[in-house]
């Protein structure tokens, strides 16, 4: 049996794709911590980790080994089952979301017709384990963090969905590959339709920062008031899973923003092969990813009530308006469909 025949089998193909995506994303998450610490060091006029390996590149391996060897403590009066379930469940939903993201033409583990909806559904589901972690810790800081995360999550999901509808309407599909392909025809949705696309991109990017709990929206993890948020009571690799999920979620947000607004894997030069697509996709996602880091280390944290007000008073009405404007644009400028 040749390799092509083996890969034609849906089960084999699914298994191979899953293993590749899982490994790839774990590697990205591990070295994202190194990039983050180096960027933070630069911005704060210090050096950052540079001792383990060349430029400190082996630091993530050292960190992972340290976390794996540490004991996972469960607080005495915690809800043991839920406490241990939460970090794994959180990572599971993040991985499930990333499975439908295409990394190039045909480079997708699960090409769903409802790809974008699946991503939004899974990142919405991540609220539940976050809340479980906060509640089951039996710690008031964790509980407050869990409640904040849930409140922020369900609020920011509304403008996130609405602004994501703009490229969906323009491309006429929920499938992430189709949306990326449609931009080869229409141009980047962040640029065209003028104004509407850019506003939708800015709102999508802002709300996805909130969904991934990044500064200026990281009130669930506000270390100056809540110790370490929902992960306060976690130790060892259970704590590591929270950190990993945060980076995977940020990487996922950047990748989806790239696919929806920045033309996905299409770019000048290099041609249309799968590896060119992969290079462009990773490059664009990395640019967004690093800009999220730069934002994190330059902005201050918002207060919880300011955050909610900003969402409901500004983001929701504006994104509703953008959906209406897109419908008018399709009817007037493109002559309907």
């Amino acid at each position: 049996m040749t390799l092509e025949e083996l890969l034609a089998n849906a089960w084999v193909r699914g298994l191979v794709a899953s293993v590749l995506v899982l490994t790839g994303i774990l590697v990205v998450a591990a070295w994202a911590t190194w990039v983050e610490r180096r960027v933070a060091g630069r911005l704060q006029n210090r050096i950052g980790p540079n001792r383990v390996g060349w430029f400190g590149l082996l630091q993530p391996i050292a960190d992972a080994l340290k976390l794996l060897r540490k004991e996972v403590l469960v607080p005495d009066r915690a809800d043991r089952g839920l406490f241990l379930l939460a970090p794994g469940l959180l990572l599971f939903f993040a991985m499930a979301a990333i499975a439908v993201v295409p990394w190039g033409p045909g480079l997708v583990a699960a090409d769903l017709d409802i790809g974008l909806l699946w991503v939004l559904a899974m990142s919405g589901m991540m609220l539940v384990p976050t809340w479980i972690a906060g509640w089951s810790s039996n710690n008031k800081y964790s509980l407050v963090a869990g409640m904040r995360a849930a409140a922020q999550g369900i609020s920011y999901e509304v403008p996130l969905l609405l602004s994501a509808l703009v490229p969906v309407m323009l491309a006429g599909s929920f499938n992430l590959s189709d949306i990326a392909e449609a931009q080869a025809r229409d141009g980047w949705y962040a640029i065209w339709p003028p104004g509407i696309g850019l506003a939708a991109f800015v709102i999508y990017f802002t709300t996805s920062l909130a969904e991934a709990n990044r500064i200026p929206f990281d009130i669930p993890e506000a270390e100056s008031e809540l110790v370490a948020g929902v992960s306060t009571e976690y130790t060892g690799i259970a704590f590591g899973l929270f950190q990993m999920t945060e980076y995977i979620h940020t990487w996922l947000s950047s990748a989806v923003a790239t696919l929806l607004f920045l033309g996905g894997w299409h770019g000048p030069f290099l041609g249309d092969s799968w590896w060119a697509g992969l290079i462009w996709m990773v490059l664009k996602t990395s640019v967004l990813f690093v800009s999220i880091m730069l934002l994190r280390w330059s902005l201050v944290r918002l207060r919880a009530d300011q955050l909610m007000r900003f969402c409901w008073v500004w983001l929701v009405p504006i994104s509703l308006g953008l959906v209406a404007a897109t419908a008018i644009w399709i009817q007037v400028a493109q002559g309907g469909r």
Partner: protein
Amino acid sequence: MAETIAFGIIAACMLGSGLLAVTSKKLVHSVLWLAATLVSTAALYVALAAPFLAAMQIVLYTGGVVTLMLFGVMLTDQAHDVGAANLSGKRLPAVLLGLLLFGLLAAAIQRTSLPPIVEAPPASTVELGKVLLLDHVVAFEALSVLLLATMIGAIVLARRNDVQD
């Protein structure tokens, strides 16, 4: 065959988590088992070739309603205490009512003549949108007005008159 096995597993998950939702001693556990029931329902939609419905089920029910229910639970007495148990004493009436409802539904299903199963192609999101917004547009709009009225009603009820904003 594969459909039957999938249906069996999904139905077992739905019934099991549903049962645990009503028998759990802690209120938070009940809500989380309810979330598991809702996710199993989404799995059933996938098995019935309706992926859009499944995704909406997860976005709205698990992502939205369950999160709101967790908020509601936190407003109850002692819910912040992980150790607190919540026991309802009315077991017998609950079982009787459940059996009554089951009997009613079973009788209704028995009488209904179900159309024979045909191999339908999976309904695409585009077709679903066309059916909703072209064929059933009046019902669709009536539903949105209903939801809007509910939302305004909730705001009116929740609004405190002494707060000037």
